[in-house]
């Protein structure tokens, strides 16, 4: 289905061996390299009184550390890097997708125009991978903090009522993965379609409010993904109070 040139499936731009490299995969490599460069540059020769890039990154980190500490309490030191990585990856992915070269430079093939760069979260593969990683990390941390026995007691129980609740909770875990992935995918993909449609109608001045909307949506969706992962981890790693 094509609406203004945007397709649901990410376009394949090449092959490495038997791996089909799509434009979103290629962009995600670039985003990873960008984050690595920023991280190394900010942490290179750390000064006690920060300035420049170190200062900027520290202000971001401190702001979110306070928010995470509010919710996570004593487990913040373990949980914070995980959720902050999700946030940084998603927000850098969303914002780089708004840059000028995305969706426009590419090459022509028999099936049409294939752009070389594409916003990474407009691909359901990326968001599903992020949601799955979030779920696996949540359960791994729960097993680490609660121990295997207490962890399993949540899902299976001898009491029939709690057994039913356990089954519902298992189903709930799958819905969490689906909801996380589709929320991020839907927002960013819909933003891509909107901007592409409005740009195909009148490419000057008119897309500006939509770009502004995409800036807001990019930040909100990254923050929501982070907060949801954080809340799920905190809830799952909490020691079950005995009745």
């Amino acid at each position: 289905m094509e609406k203004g040139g945007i397709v649901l499936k990410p376009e394949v731009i090449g092959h490495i061996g038997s791996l089909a490299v799509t434009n979103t995969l290629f962009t995600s490599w670039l985003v990873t390299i960008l984050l690595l460069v920023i991280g190394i540059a900010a942490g290179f020769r750390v000064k006690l009184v920060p300035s420049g890039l170190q200062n900027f990154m520290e202000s971001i980190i401190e702001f979110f550390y306070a928010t995470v500490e509010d919710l996570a309490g004593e487990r913040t030191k373990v949980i914070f890097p995980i959720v902050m990585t999700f946030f940084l990856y998603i927000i850098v992915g969303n914002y780089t997708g708004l840059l000028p070269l995305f969706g426009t430079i590419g090459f022509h093939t028999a099936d049409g125009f294939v752009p070389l760069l594409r916003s990474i979260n407009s691909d359901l593969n990326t968001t599903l991978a992020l949601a799955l990683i979030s779920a696996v990390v949540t359960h791994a941390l729960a097993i680490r903090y609660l121990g295997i026995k207490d962890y399993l007691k949540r899902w299976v129980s001898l009491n029939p009522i709690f057994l039913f609740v356990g089954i519902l909770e298992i189903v709930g875990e799958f819905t969490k993965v689906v909801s996380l992935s589709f929320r991020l995918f839907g927002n960013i993909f819909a933003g891509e379609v909107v901007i592409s449609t409005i740009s195909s109608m009148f490419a000057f001045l008119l897309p500006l409010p939509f770009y502004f909307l995409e800036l807001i949506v990019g930040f909100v969706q990254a923050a929501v993904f982070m907060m949801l992962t954080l809340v799920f981890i905190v809830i799952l790693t909490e020691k079950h109070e005995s009745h």
Partner: protein
Amino acid sequence: MENLPSALAIGLGALGPGLGIGLIGMKAMEAIGRNPDSSTKVLPAMLLGMAFAEAIAIYALVIAFIK
């Protein structure tokens, strides 16, 4: 006429979330109006709630896109 399923999907699917987001905003406005100092606590919670409600509309939008 061939776009009717997509139109219905997103049209009807946006009713619930639209009402939901409006109600969340209304209650947030009331809370901030009664206690202006609480806006730093109410605002992030409101945004989080709105993002959840909007996600339902996004599910409907994805269905509208793929059909």
